[in-house]
């Protein structure tokens, strides 16, 4: 089966490592994915808050393009995944939205007939490929690596498309298949603050800090994420978040933990050479952790 790969804007910017590692995993697992022809921005959460109707039309262009190719969409970015899913549901539920969207699509020679499925890589890996097939392809098991699985919001909420909303386990199972030890992480679906770090920084930092301290307290070596914005928030503001703590111990010993995309860990286990999976793009290096666990790296 062939999929239409919809990268989204972030995977061409701060989330480049996500795209590089995802494509590496596709190759290792022999998943045929072709980039969606001339895809456009899905509108993300920002467009929704200024002009809702227009944002559905924007998202629907991508749906219609994939439908024309008769392929399911793979959307790795959490915001894209939710926006595309939500657009499908709202077109179904609200006749007014449907009218606006179909007229707009007709104007550019497209049509949307609700025949496309929007999938997340987690869903495809677990349900189309399966844990057993993945475990069989692991060449470098991530033995002894303790991973905190962080799902964030928009993959499991508001629609439970392929996993439980309060305690999702898809990523846990995939990483265990790769030989890693998945630690209990109760905040796995708590919000990372989204763009709040940029707009209202004091609040954003608080949310980021809870997530990192909880992962470190539970003994994690690395946090695995599924969303470019979560990854950015958790990785880039660790020093700032520690500075906010009154506890003198954190001042001396600031928060520091590598934050990777789950696909980077999978690609590593599946034997993709290090250069193509974006490890060098991390601001908090993973190499010392891997060396301590004696996991060979490129």
């Amino acid at each position, binding site marked *: 089966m062939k999929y239409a790969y919809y990268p989204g804007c972030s995977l061409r910017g701060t989330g480049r490592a996500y795209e590089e590692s995802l494509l590496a995993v596709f190759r290792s697992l022999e998943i045929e994915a072709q980039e969606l022809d001339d895809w456009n921005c899905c509108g993300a959460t920002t467009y929704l808050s200024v002009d809702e*109707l227009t944002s559905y*039309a924007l998202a629907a262009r991508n749906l219609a393009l994939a439908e024309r190719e008769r392929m399911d969409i793979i959307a790795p970015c959490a915001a894209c995944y939710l926006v595309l899913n939500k657009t499908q549901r709202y077109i179904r539920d609200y006749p007014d939205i449907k009218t606006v969207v179909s007229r707009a699509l007709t104007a550019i020679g497209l049509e949307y007939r609700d025949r496309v499925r929007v999938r997340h890589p987690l869903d495809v890996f677990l349900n189309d490929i399966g844990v057993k097939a993945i475990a069989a392809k692991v060449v470098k098991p991530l033995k002894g690596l303790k991973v905190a699985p962080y799902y964030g919001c928009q993959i499991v909420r*508001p629609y439970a498309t392929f996993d439980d909303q309060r305690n999702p386990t898809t990523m846990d199972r995939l990483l265990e298949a790769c030989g890693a030890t998945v630690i209990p992480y109760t905040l796995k679906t708590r919000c990372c603050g989204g763009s709040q770090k940029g707009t209202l920084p004091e609040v954003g930092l608080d949310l980021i800090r809870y997530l990192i301290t909880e992962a470190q307290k539970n003994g994690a070596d690395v946090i695995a994420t599924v969303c470019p914005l979560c990854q950015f928030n958790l990785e880039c503001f660790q020093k700032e978040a520690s500075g906010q703590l009154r506890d003198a111990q954190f001042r001396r010993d600031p928060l520091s933990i590598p934050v990777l995309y789950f696909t980077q860990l999978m690609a590593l286990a599946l034997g993709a050479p290090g250069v193509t999976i974006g490890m060098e793009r991390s601001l908090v290096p993973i190499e010392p952790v891997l060396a301590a666990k004696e996991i060979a790296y490129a």
Partner: protein
Amino acid sequence: MELKWTIKFEADRDREFARWISHTVGGERIRHCLQCGLCSASCPLSLYMDYTPRRLMHLSREGFKEEVLSSASIWLCTACYACMVECPKKINITHLMYALKERAILEGFYPKRFPIPVMARQFCRMVRSSGRITESWLILQVFLRSAIWRLLGMSNLGWRLFRAGRMTMKREKIQRQHEIVTLLDSVAETRKELAL
């Protein structure tokens, strides 16, 4: 010490606003709200809010437009959908937050140079002109228009991201840009025609 009266009267209500919220997309069930407070309890940001989601739902369905639209809460919502999952009456709270944000921007209920509406405006402009978002340019434009001084504090991070190849000055653009413009114009036209 002086006592502050916060009593509201029937006459303070804006009935048009109350009608609007229960007829907008996602607001169909707002009248079913039990005021149970699960939304506020599950909200990771309610701690920072002046009106928690539960109070906001009640105030808006009763028509307290001023209080609702000038509340900080609508800007604090990150759209994490925790409230919506917990709501026993399946009220689309997150979506209503979007609707309130949209209305607050439309009616100018926000402080000058407030970054959220600035970001929203720049985002929409970039979609119209390029079809895709280039994060580095978006961030730059938002801070130039809202808080220039904060760019200085971020220059170190920007440089590190640039060196890691995660910030680029090259602008992403789709090939058939005219399609996006036609699409956006068509939505505006239909909206006018159907008065949505």
